């Protein structure tokens, strides 16, 4: 009798786990970094913005975090410990995998550009939050949400360089940007980041460097928010 019970139990567990597996699936999202609709090239290509700034991009790094999918049936999928560092120099950082997503059509994806206040002070120095990745602010605890560096003849400083290290999470310094995008019928999982949308909105003659949290950083963050588009 006991044996029969055990047998039934094992079969039930197997069925259940099979069931769970069948209704979930992994999704890979790709991030395409573009400049004027063409893949961004670091260092070796000159671009001209609508403000006639000639620019060379040397660095583009930013965080995507707290990724949430809104499914067709109205439920939400939240990624666990959701922090991804995207780095134009590192091809493997240009995609992320969401695991065990319920197998429904995805209506919407939302995420933060940057690291929220909780993760900023967690001292969880692992994975993409490792300060060795070069996005940690040592003098003012927290992370750089978005780092853009380059050269431009429009810059008035001696080295003709621009540097934007945008971050901040305190109440009046919060530069975190929430992006929400509706997925198309085709369910393409490509996040386009159109850098020219940001650089077209600023004048490098006037603004060449923002390295601390605050009002200017928040304004800049609102401008780069427009870079994120979905295909």
């Amino acid at each position, binding site marked *: 009798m006991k044996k029969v019970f055990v047998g039934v139990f094992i079969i039930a567990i197997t069925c259940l786990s099979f069931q769970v597996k069948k209704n979930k699936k992994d999704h890979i999202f790709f991030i395409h970094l573009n400049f004027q609709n063409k893949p961004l090239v670091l260092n070796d290509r000159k671009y001209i913005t609508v403000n006639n700034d000639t620019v060379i991009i040397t660095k583009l790094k930013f965080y995507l975090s707290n990724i949430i999918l809104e499914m067709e049936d109205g439920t939400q999928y939240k990624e666990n410990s959701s922090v991804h560092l995207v780095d134009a120099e590192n091809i493997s950082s240009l995609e992320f995998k969401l695991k065990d997503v319920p197998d429904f059509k995805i209506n919407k994806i939302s995420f933060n550009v940057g690291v929220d206040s909780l993760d900023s002070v967690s001292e969880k120095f692992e994975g993409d939050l490792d300060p*060795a*990745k070069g996005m940690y602010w*040592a*003098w003012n*605890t927290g992370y750089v949400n978005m780092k853009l560096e380059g050269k431009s003849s429009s810059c008035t400083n001696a080295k003709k360089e621009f540097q934007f290290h945008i971050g901040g999470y305190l109440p009046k310094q919060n530069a975190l940007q929430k992006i929400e995008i509706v997925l198309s019928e085709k369910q393409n999982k490509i996040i386009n980041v159109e850098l020219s949308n940001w650089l077209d909105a600023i004048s490098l003659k006037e603004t060449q460097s923002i390295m601390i949290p605050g009002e200017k950083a928040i304004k800049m963050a609102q401008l780069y928010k427009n870079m994120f588009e979905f295909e």
Partner: protein
Amino acid sequence: MNKKEIILLLVFILTFFLFSLKRNTYIDFFVPKGWPKPVYNFKDTKLTQEGFELGRKLFYDPILSKDSTISCSSCHSQYTGFAHTDHAVSHGVEGRIGTRNALPLMNLAWVEKFHWDGGVLGLNSQPINPITNSLEMDNSMANVLISLNHSKKYQGLFYKVFGDSVITTNNLLKSIAQFTVSLQSYNSKYDKVMRHEKGVFFTEQEQNGHQLFKRNCESCHKEPLITNEGFADNGLPLDKDYSDYGRVAITQNPKDSFNFRVPTLRNIEFTYPYMHDGRFMKLRDVINFYTDGKANRKTLARELLKPIVLSENEKKDLIAFLLTLTDKEFLFNPKYSYPKD
């Protein structure tokens, strides 16, 4: 007992023995009687003898700096309360000069916000600042990890503490913190008098100084830590060479202009020069500043609105009391000194 049972028992004992061999020796953090609860998170960073020793090695090792010339101890030397007496402001690689006076290190388990401006929110993350600051060690965290991971000595030591010979940022910072959080000073004459230890008494002058201290200083330099762990404008006139407005750079709240850390005064006899820019060499200068030299501005701490009036003798008494905050057992404790291999 049959043979099988005996073998099983032997295996059990052997496993236990091997397990105990590998285990680190845990240390209980000591909180002196009557002190507040520490704010440091001992759950995330458990203190072990091995971790403490590793942190101590790192603290004294110039490997953390860009060109392997300076270590934490270059600006934080034990005999001066882990401060830097020779210099008003900190010195870095290639003789570069910083902008602020290196703070003494002690009783850090009670500190919530670090540095003169409180910009750093944890003891574990604090070392990232001196390591990467271009005026201090001018290194990158990635590069420090490469240097350490190339060292057979450190691979072995990290394995012993964390069971992993690959050195990570987390484990590096946790080991340094195990050392720095253990730098405890609670055995000054002042402490012994407060504990009513046998045969230890204040002199009349020290006693009088203690009363003056309570009346004029204690609202900010709160006992027993001799600091309220806050930030305040003490009226120190701006030094235009630095144009350092302190905490406002972090909070961007104008009310925080001229606000700097209220430092502990423990071991103050040895932590000169004083103030965030090290402008005063002597305790007498500091006291004269508080009685006569404060700038009158909007941000001035309200505790200082009422003038401090002290006679020449009272100033002497107050200094006599401040000298009772010297803790020789801390300053000369061999367990905190340069590790001899």
